[in-house]
């Protein structure tokens, strides 16, 4: 393992609230590293509905979700935060007073004075298809991700779905499978046209099967799938024999490892915080944005912005215990304007 990364703050989640936290922390001279499971910056705004309009950001009558992310990135540019994408935080361990060791699923390690959880609805994870009785097969013969292609050599593979993941894995696994069937609900695919063309070519050459229909149930023993029962669009049912099934039904948000970090969660999914500082029950760990809870909580971006500002004030005490914090406005403070890289407003 490489050397741990030492930083003032680790922010878990690079959505709009995590991004604005960089700004508020930056004004108070705290440097941040952001970690996000997605392959892009912006959280839900970028992943789920980049084109959708947002009308309730104060002072911005209208923006798109991606537009808001882009504006935030521009706003926080002076603070050169560092991003670690495609990584999920596995553990947060308290090793000082306060000092934390944060580890990701990619083996990266951070030593951080404070931790800010801005994880929104949790981490994006592959969605389980709504097939009754799928649980015993998961991880044994039903997989939501392909870690090692070799594990599927000479198997009868059933890929389910019509998006890029389904098509990419169909193309990648076809050469090594004993037999591969791609099952999709309809004849239109959401995937890149080039992948669809390549897949159709394989079908034309008789190398793979394409079946239109939906899985209604699975049959097998001890977690080993034997066949999937498939209903076609005309209502008839038949079986597809297979050794492994790979369903690709998009992403959903799950709380994920946060559930194991020892917080007394509200409704099993939200982290209670103190509204003076948005600190959790663990001193030095903060929770802001949709993932926190307090009386009167509203899951609004504007609430998360407010929470980030108050969080930064308290965080300053931990990161600079000997420094007095003087409250200042960006409008008039030359020292804040210096940090922002803008000329002081003097004639």
């Amino acid at each position, binding site marked *: 393992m490489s050397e741990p990364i030492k930083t003032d703050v680790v922010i878990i989640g690079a959505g709009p609230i995590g991004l604005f936290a960089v700004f508020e922390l930056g004004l108070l001279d705290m440097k941040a590293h952001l970690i996000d499971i997605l392959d892009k910056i912006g959280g839900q705004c970028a992943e*789920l509905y980049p084109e959708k309009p947002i009308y309730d950001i104060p002072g911005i009558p209208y923006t798109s979700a991606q537009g808001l992310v882009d504006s935030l990135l521009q706003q926080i540019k002076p603070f050169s935060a560092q991003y670690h994408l495609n990584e999920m935080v596995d553990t947060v361990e308290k090793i000082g007073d306060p000092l934390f060791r944060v580890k990701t699923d990619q083996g990266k390690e951070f030593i951080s004075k404070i931790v800010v959880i801005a994880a929104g609805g949790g981490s994006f994870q592959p969605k389980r*298809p709504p097939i009754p009785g799928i649980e015993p097969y998961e991880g044994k013969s039903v997989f939501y991700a392909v870690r090692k292609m070799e594990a599927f050599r000479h198997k009868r593979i059933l890929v389910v779905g019509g998006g890029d993941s389904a098509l990419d894995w169909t193309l990648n696994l076809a050469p090594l499978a004993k037999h591969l069937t791609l099952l999709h609900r309809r004849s*239109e695919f*959401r995937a890149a046209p080039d992948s669809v063309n390549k897949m159709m070519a394989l079908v034309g050459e008789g190398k793979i099967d394409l079946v239109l229909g*939906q899985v*209604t149930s699975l049959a097998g023993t001890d977690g080993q799938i034997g066949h999937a029962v498939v209903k076609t669009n005309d209502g008839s049912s038949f079986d597809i024999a297979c050794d492994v099934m790979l369903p690709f039904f998009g992403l959903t948000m799950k709380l994920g490892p946060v559930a194991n970090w020892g917080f007394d969660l509200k409704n099993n999914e939200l982290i209670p915080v103190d509204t003076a500082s948005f600190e959790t029950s663990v001193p030095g760990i903060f929770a802001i944005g949709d993932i926190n809870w307090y009386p009167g909580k509203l899951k609004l971006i504007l609430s998360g912005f407010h929470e980030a500002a108050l969080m930064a004030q308290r965080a300053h005490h931990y990161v600079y215990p000997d420094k007095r914090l003087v409250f200042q406005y960006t409008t008039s403070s030359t020292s804040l304007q210096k940090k922002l890289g803008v000329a002081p407003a003097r004639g």
Partner: protein
Amino acid sequence: MVKITFIDAEGAARTVEGEVGATVMETAIKHGVPGIEAECGGACACSTCHVYIEEAWREKVGEPSPMEEDMLDFAFEVRPNSRLSCQIKVREDFNGLTVRTPERQA
């Protein structure tokens, strides 16, 4: 006002008043109709407000858009009369609209 009836997978019917211009999903959530989750809040970004439109209403309600069809790929037991209720706006002439909620949302 426009009356909309939701019938669940067990056959229990609930009739509520919908507001013209609101979506069928919003109508269900506002009245606490079970069987519709609407996880994404109506952004056509999940498929947890899936409903089946009663045959007599299919033509009037119309077909899903290509984007809605894409999201329906993630739903359970999609049928030719499947729609996402967040994508259906209540209209004056929808009085009596009947939809069925599926056995499970994705």
